[in-house]
């Protein structure tokens, strides 16, 4: 009993150190831009850089669009698969996992080939078209996380009976999705949304190869040309990602009423 507890602590400390030591080292390094003294100048440099603001804003906007498009596609899909075509579930799950298996670089070369300016759908022919393509690419990248989050949410409610109960009361499919299903899986959808957001903020490959001014390429640019600022940026990125993750925790605590408790 005692030894197993000791081992549990040792495992925990080793695991925590594995994650925390590089982070602390990076943080410490980011403070040493001035010789002989700690300062936050690297952070000030980063935050005052107009291209930081531009690229960050760009990625946030793309992230929000990605979430909206992703929710609009994935929630109805997961719902109908569960309700009408449960036999298709393994197949759909396999499809949603593909973005994890296919490297982003393959994806983006495929996109460029398919949607170049001479194709039927010349997305890459204009800046706004490329932005749309980037958003759709991010929806694909976020698919495994979003689908899984939504599907887990749907598992916690009795989709079929709730649908039937709402149907017999006169509701149509859109009303059921909007008034009953979505509110009941909102927490799951938001978890998926924040995961999506975290992915979009840090994504480099696709944004870079589509030549969009996103946050990922900016990180790379700064990392290649400066010494201390990249460390500060890494810490900032961490804070944003963690912020998104803790929002998931916070939200699930604030909305207990959507949880159906067993009798």
């Amino acid at each position, binding site marked *: 009993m005692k030894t197993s507890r000791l081992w549990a602590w040792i495992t925990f400390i080793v695991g925590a150190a594995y994650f925390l030591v590089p982070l602390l080292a990076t943080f410490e390094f980011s403070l040493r831009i001035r010789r002989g003294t700690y300062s936050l100048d690297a952070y000030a440099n980063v935050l005052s850089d107009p291209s930081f603001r531009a690229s960050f804003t760009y990625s946030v906007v793309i992230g929000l669009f990605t979430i909206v498009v992703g929710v609009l596609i994935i929630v109805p899909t997961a719902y109908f698969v569960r309700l009408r075509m449960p036999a298709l579930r393994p197949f759909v799950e396999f499809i949603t996992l593909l973005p994890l298996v296919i490297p982003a670089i393959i994806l983006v070369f495929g996109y460029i080939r398919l949607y170049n300016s001479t194709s039927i759908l010349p997305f890459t022919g204009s800046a706004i078209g490329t932005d749309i393509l980037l958003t759709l690419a991010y929806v694909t990248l976020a698919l495994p996380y979003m689908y899984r989050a939504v599907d887990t949410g749907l598992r916690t409610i009795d989709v079929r009976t709730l649908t*039937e*109960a709402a149907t*017999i*009361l006169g509701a149509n499919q859109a009303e059921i999705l909007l008034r009953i299903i979505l509110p009941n899986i909102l927490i799951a959808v938001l978890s998926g949304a924040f995961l999506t957001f975290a992915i979009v903020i840090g994504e480099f490959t696709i944004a870079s190869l589509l030549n969009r001014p996103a946050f990922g390429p900016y990180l790379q640019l700064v990392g290649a040309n400066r010494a201390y600022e990249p460390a500060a940026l890494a810490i900032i990125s961490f804070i944003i990602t963690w912020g998104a993750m803790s929002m998931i925790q916070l939200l699930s605590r604030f909305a207990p009423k959507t949880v159906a*408790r067993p009798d």
Partner: protein
Amino acid sequence: MTEEFLRLEGINKVFGTNKVVSDINMSFSKGEFISFLGPSGCGKTTILRMIAGFEQPTSGKIFVGGQDVTHLKPNERKLGMVFQAYALFPNLTVADNIGFGLKIARTPRDQAAARVEEMLAMIGLAKFGKRYPFELSGGQQQRVALARAIAPRPTMLLLDEPLSALDAKIRVSLREEIRSIQRELGITTIFVTHDQEEALSISDRIVVMNAGRAEQIGTPFEIYNRPATRFVATFVGTLNTLEGKVQNVADRVVSVDGQAITLPALPASAQSDAPISLTMRPEAVVLGKPNGQDVVLEGIVSDVSFLGSVIRLRVNLGSNSLSLDTFNDQRSPPPALNEKIKVSLSSSDILILN
């Protein structure tokens, strides 16, 4: 009460190669409380789901109020339904749950609010409007589900084993409540259950189902006292079955474990020495031999169960045994175990099953 309201015409339902409902032809009056009773898998829920519109009959038609609704979508049928699993919307308050159908029908807000208040009062949960379903007990949740089904003034109420998930005491009180609300509103109600006591206690008429077919349709009194088939007789209530032999066709005498019983009539197919099954309800058999009981049997008491107001005895006749219920009478204690006793019954209470 005699106006035809719901008619099922030649309904069949096949799932793959499995025929779950066969040849259902029946009609019901407005305001009737109908129970579909049967073991699980007998097709009763499938019939309810076809009436609701969740399943399409493979063949046949469903008429409500003279109108063919067979191909209407469930959300166009204006029905109320209560599910076994309550199916309250977890994200909505009790009041919003009850008001959901009204909201979907775009009922003006003040009218809807008044109707919700009325429904809350009807189910005795007037102060629970702002609560969420998870804060209620099972019985309360099911009452909310009932109110939700009734609020939009449906043409018919469908109850899919609404009491099965509840514990015994609440089950009895809620079924009485459902029945009294149903009587007050005069709403035609279809109730699906596998519990014969439930069906007998609240129905105007019962449809006993077995293997996709309707075995018998009748009032609880008819179903219990004049079961049409062996299945109905054995499924509804307890039944004694005595295996005997025809002794004399002309005199209508049957022998059970060597004791002769003269019946009012024998089936036309009866032949001497052929085996025959006699059945009777436990309450048809009495201890001793009061007047008017023309069949007397002798046996040995093999079991005495004291059930409170009733004492159930098991009497061994030889190869057959027989249960009988007798009222608990303070002045005469029940017979002892292994005591030799006489029991009697009226030959008109004996049913011969094929």
